[in-house]
């Protein structure tokens, strides 16, 4: 199997599953219980918290465990908006966000918030200057994606965060789901940051929100004092343990494998550029080492995905959270790359496990399939 849809999800590592199993069986107590198994589960939970915090270079008490990226994004965005709405009701995000950010903002519009959706450049990037320009007296939140989930483009989050410090009234959130364990991010000037475990070989249903000390938000869930009352509900101790394990292993891999992935990406982009049907959407520099987005104008990407999967090569069209919808990629459209490219985009994403031979297999298959399809579909037009 050639699995090249790692931005949708990754395969959990055996060590991670093993940690999950042991944590779930040896430390099954409820961390809030007074008895010994409860204390043990709580101890393990706190160790997991310290481990995740350490990898993000923040403090343990700044981590709120959640069910994943979508919840972290919703908690950050709605939590800040509802908590601080007396200060102002203006919010800023971009037109190239993941659906869990974009739709959270759209939902807030229903509640009387006003949202500015910043335009991106042709690489899908939002400049710090444009962010600063959009800030108003009543702006309380800015949320921007770090590594774009469709394009792989890296946004200058650290610089944006630094520049936004001149507005002490607003909070700055970043969606770091695709960046975690691939593109390091300094959170010193960031207020909130989302990560998700299954993007780095952890398990689905686990994630975290970094929330800087002193930042308060409304909770989405009520009913308990867990996670400092920011997220009620019995903690997923084995899932959190597995996440800490996966995060550590991935960070270790990053140290060794980052350059290899980076050259794999460049290799793939160059190969694709030799195909006359292809338009590569991912910039070769300033992008994450594991995502390549390419359009084959005139070819329906769903059909391409189907044909590739028949050959045991698995890629995706756009974000998994929107790929079942018959719509062009909103991200590519917003980057101004045109309708045609937005309708026909394919995303190829690696993990630290991806071998060069797999990339070769995908390229060979594409080189064969695309011209054929273009002929068939082209005739219909």
């Amino acid at each position: 199997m050639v699995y090249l849809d790692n931005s949708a999800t990754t395969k959990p590592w055996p060590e991670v599953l093993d940690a999950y199993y042991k944590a779930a069986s040896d430390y099954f107590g409820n961390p809030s219980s007074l008895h010994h198994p409860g204390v043990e589960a709580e101890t393990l939970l706190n160790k997991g918290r310290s481990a995740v915090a350490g990898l993000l270079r923040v403090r343990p008490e700044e981590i709120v465990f959640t069910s994943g990226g979508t919840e972290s994004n919703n908690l950050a965005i709605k939590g800040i908006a509802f908590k601080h709405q007396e200060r102002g009701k203006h919010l800023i995000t971009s037109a190239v966000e993941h659906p869990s950010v974009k739709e959270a903002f759209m939902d807030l519009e229903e509640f009387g918030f006003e949202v500015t959706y910043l335009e991106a450049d042709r690489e899908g990037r939002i400049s710090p200057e444009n962010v600063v320009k959009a800030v108003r007296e009543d702006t309380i939140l800015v949320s921007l994606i770090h590594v774009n989930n469709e394009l792989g483009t890296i946004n200058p989050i650290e610089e944006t965060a630094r520049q936004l410090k001149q507005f002490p009234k607003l909070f700055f959130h970043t969606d770091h789901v695709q960046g975690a364990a691939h593109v390091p991010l300094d959170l010193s000037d960031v207020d909130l940051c989302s990560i998700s475990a299954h993007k780095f070989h952890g398990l689905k249903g686990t994630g975290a929100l970094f929330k800087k000390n002193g930042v308060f938000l409304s909770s989405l869930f009520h009913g308990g004092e867990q996670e400092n009352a920011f997220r009620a509900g019995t903690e997923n101790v084995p899932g959190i343990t597995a996440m800490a394990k996966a995060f550590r292993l991935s960070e270790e891999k990053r140290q060794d494998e980052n350059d290899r992935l980076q050259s794999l990406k460049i290799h793939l982009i160059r190969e694709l550029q030799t195909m006359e049907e292809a338009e590569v959407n991912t910039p070769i520099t300033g992008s994450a080492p594991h995502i390549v987005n390419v359009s084959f104008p005139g070819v329906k990407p769903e059909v391409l995905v189907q044909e590739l999967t028949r050959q045991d090569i698995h890629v995706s069209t756009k974000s998994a959270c929107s790929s079942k919808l018959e719509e062009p990629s909103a991200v590519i459209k917003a980057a101004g790359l045109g309708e045609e490219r937005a309708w026909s985009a394919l995303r190829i994403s690696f993990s630290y496990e991806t071998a060069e031979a797999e990339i070769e297999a995908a390229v060979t298959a594409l080189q064969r399939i695309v011209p054929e399809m273009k002929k068939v579909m082209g005739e219909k037009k």
Partner: protein
Amino acid sequence: MRYDHILVRYGELALKGKNRAQFEKKLEQNIRFAVSGAPNCKVKRTFGRIMIELHGEPPTTVMEPLRHVFGISSFSLAMKAANKEEEIKETALQAFLQQSGAKKTFKVNARRSYKPFPISSQEMNQRIGGYVLKNTDNVTVDVHHPDIEINVEIREQGTFITCGRIEGAGGLPVGTAGKVMLMLSGGIDSPVAGYLALKRGAELEAVHFHSPPYTNERARKKVEDLTSVLTAFGGPVTLHVVPFTELQKAIHANIPSNYAMTIMRRMMLRITERIAEKRGIKALANGESLGQVASQTLESMHTINEVTNMPILRPLVTMDKQEVIDISDKIGTYPISILPYEDCCTIFLPSDSVTKPRRDKAARFEQAFDFEPYMEEAVENTEMMTFGRETKQSEQHMDDLL
């Protein structure tokens, strides 16, 4: 060219003539322990300074633990250059450029302790200053209030260039003042007392009284966690957990309720003294503050203190509660201390405790019952564990999962 060294300065040590070598050695050891999370670092002693070579370790992971090491007056990121004029000038420029924050004005402060270097300090100031001015825009010299002071130290091994400095924790290196036995309750005060004892160079061991099932397992966990936090300031700490239930029951059954607390504290002090003696420790420490609660009136201290003639350090004795809380917050023990688990002091204790107990009365009440076997048993069954060196076995299993 990057910041690849950290220059550590120590103030008070320089004053201590005879002990100096021993103090420096201890400080070097403590720094090594503090930065052990960055294994590539090398810690070296040079004349009146300690130099940390980073060897690729990120400066922030090394600087954070350094801030907590007692005995350091300040430290700075440094760049090293060979003793050649051109290289020194270029390195100084880079050091200036890579400094963050405001840098409109600067001044150069060169010191040539290696006299064979042919250019005088004064002359170097001018040459380096000129070089920086030539290679920057809108930057001027201000010798009185510069944004950035470029310090250039020309030594035999090479020239070290630093910009700015970070305040150290002050105090004396832990271990230079011997060991004290801290009575650690789990509240806000006693960890702060421990911290302050560390600050004056004392190494710590800690005693905690645990009364299961009347005190909760979490209360004990809390004390273990507090002990762990304290290791950040001076290395490993051994914790002694005294099983106190039987003795407490005996007090409850045999002592008039208004004297129960006084007697309990006398017992605790006796037990602590015995453990300290066994461990070769010559002083005790606790978190008492004058007049704060009933057990901390002068009369109460007088009566309780009667049972030992070991010195008792009371670093908090003249502090206000808020001052203690501020330190507790700064050192990271506050969020643990305020967790709501009862310790052995709050259980069994009546509300009618005397605030002005008398020695003669306390002694008389104690004679009514033979507490000695209970104390012996408590000392005998005390559990000992060390934090900061190796993890507990049960936690090792957990750590393997992460």
